[in-house]
């Protein structure tokens, strides 16, 4: 208890720390938002709740890491991870996901859970269980009194790349033919089929796109933080929190929720101690669920 008070005191005594925490939160939140956006896509379009979301992120990280090992410049790893994870996503779609789309909700949850276990372990067998990272070798800028706010150039570049990717996906969804088909399928897949949209193709495309977005996010993460084969669950949990909070098909909401959860986690970590970070993310999920449930109760409905 004393510690919590002490930590809150720190926040009040050094107001600049608040800014630092928010910046850190936004940086990590941007990556949560990317993974969550992919999840919202597959959830909305094909009603698949992908518990392997985080493992796609980590897989993307390892793709970038391996490319770096063979001498490719780390920043190039991001687009390459996007492309390679696209391919992996397509293979996974064709072998597993296509068979669970029409089934009940629990099926996709469990099937992707099995997938998550497999992916984590295969990565462990290939890369070992050490934490890995890619060092860009870029400087860190320090701002504020006694350099309390640190802005590593790598983080800034990473967040910029995440933003570019998010904007590109939004433009693509709005204006391209495929993007329109995806949105049409999300609204009503039967009607979309009637109108001549090849929904199977749309599904395959959506799922591959999701894997690719996650892959790019992972490639950014490996430059900024560290990855390990079993870290996937952390990102899966965050993606679910964000999507549950923002709802599917609400891109600005997903981004806002992603950034918000990033910041909330950093605050929670600061106040309660970093040991509670995972707990904070999950408790946020529960709170979001129950708040939404209360809203539904008011109109005598349940959260389905």
């Amino acid at each position, binding site marked *: 208890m004393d510690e919590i008070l002490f930590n809150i005191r720190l926040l009040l005594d050094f107001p600049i720390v608040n800014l630092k925490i928010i910046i850190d939160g936004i940086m990590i939140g941007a990556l949560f938002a990317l993974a969550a956006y992919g999840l919202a896509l597959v959830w909305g379009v094909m009603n698949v709740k992908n518990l392997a979301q985080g493992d796609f992120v980590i897989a993307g990280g390892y793709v970038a890491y391996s490319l770096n090992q063979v001498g490719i410049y780390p920043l190039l790893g991001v687009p390459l991870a996007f492309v390679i994870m696209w391919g992996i996503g397509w293979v996974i779609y064709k072998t597993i996901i296509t068979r669970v789309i029409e089934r009940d909700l629990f099926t996709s949850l469990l099937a992707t859970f099995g997938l998550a276990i497999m992916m984590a372990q295969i990565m462990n067998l290939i*890369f070992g269980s*050490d934490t890995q990272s890619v060092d860009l070798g870029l400087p860190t800028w320090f701002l504020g009194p006694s*350099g309390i706010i*640190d802005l590593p150039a790598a983080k800034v570049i990473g967040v910029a790349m995440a933003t570019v990717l998010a904007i590109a996906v939004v433009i693509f969804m709005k204006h391209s033919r495929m993007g329109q088909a995806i949105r049409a399928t999300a609204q009503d897949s039967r009607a979309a089929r009637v109108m001549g949209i090849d929904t199977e193709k749309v599904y395959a495309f959506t799922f591959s796109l999701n894997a690719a977005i996650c892959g790019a996010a992972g490639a950014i993460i490996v430059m900024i933080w*560290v990855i390990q084969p079993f870290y996937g669950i*952390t990102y899966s949990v965050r993606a679910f929190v964000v999507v549950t909070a923002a709802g599917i098909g609400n891109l600005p909401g997903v981004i806002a929720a992603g950034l918000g959860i990033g910041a909330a986690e950093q605050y929670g970590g600061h106040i309660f101690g*970093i040991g509670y970070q995972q707990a904070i993310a999950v408790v946020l999920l529960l709170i979001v669920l129950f708040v939404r449930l209360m809203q539904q109760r008011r109109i005598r409905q349940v959260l389905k």
Partner: protein
Amino acid sequence: MKLVTNLLGAAAVIGLSVSAASAMECDTIKLGAAISLTGKYATNGVNTKDGYEFAIQKIKDSGGVKVGDKCYNFEVTYYDDESKGDRGATLAERLINQDGMQYMLGPYSSGLTTAIAPVTEKYGIPMVEAEGASRSLFNKGYKYLFAVLSTSEQYLASAIALAAEKAKEQGKDPSEVTVAVAVENDPFSLDIRAGILEDAEKYGMKIVVDEKLPRDLSDMTSILTKVKLVKPDVLVVSGHSKGAATAVRQIAEQGVSVPLIAMTHCESADVVGNFGESAENILCSTQWDETLTYEDPIFGTASNYNTEVKSSFPAYADRAVPYQTAQASAAVYVFADAFQRAGSLDKDAVRDALAETDMMTFYGGVKFSEAGNNVAKPMVLRQIQNGEYKVVAPSDFAAAELVWPRP
């Protein structure tokens, strides 16, 4: 990539064994071990296994274990405990019950050892372990558990002593020293924390940051931000390999400057290889160092051990041999010694011989207390200076001057 190097390592051992087997025909003594080949401790699990295998090979090459007038070679049956305690306990039972093991080697980590020890104890199976350092292992009254390593509260205690010494040199009272502690939430690191707290209290030092790291740690910025705010004189980090890697990277990234930073597992995280400059002047605790003057007839000197492991296992070629490997080898050696002194294969005779162990190995002296922990060997504190690990404490072994304060 890891897989490939492991396979190469295994191939090297097999290659050696083929050449040796023809030299001498000995019987086999079977040892059982649950080891973390997957899961969060897999890195050090493999280090441990390599240490066991290397020692077995060395003992075989030097003529095997003489029990009475017969000669024996060790052979280990391994299972993968996935770094999970309940799995480890089940496997220990299987090793004893179904595979009929009479002697056990320890798993990696205090947590796993804590889970396995009740089982070996119940069956009265002597277990020599090399990787479980938590004091909570030695307050249960176990009779069949022997640990060759120093207990974990000693790991970083000398860092506190160093800080006090430096404070005195500056004309300050040690009680003015402030300490920040960030340890992983697992038995080993919590015990390190307990040791630090006890020692800090002895000097009247103040703990200003006391945080526990989650097991799936990938970011410790929030702790380091606090450290930057409260400016402690000592920062202590313990969180196995990933804790060391994350800390070294983010300390540099965030420009955290603390006069004295001490951590564990620098070698197994290979912080020098991975982070280069950033790791400079960090203090790392180690159970063993290849520059120490310990020596024994089987492995030769500590530095000889280091060279030979590097040539047998290509995985260590371009990094320091972690002490986890060395102590695993020492555990096998202690077993061999106990068998020879017991003069029989009876497990209780071996247990009694183990209890009376008093020997010198390349890893240091080994002598067990009543509770089963090794009391004959001090911990060593090394500092990374110009990319090399230099012993700075205790002063008997010091090979270099402490660089202080860390810029």
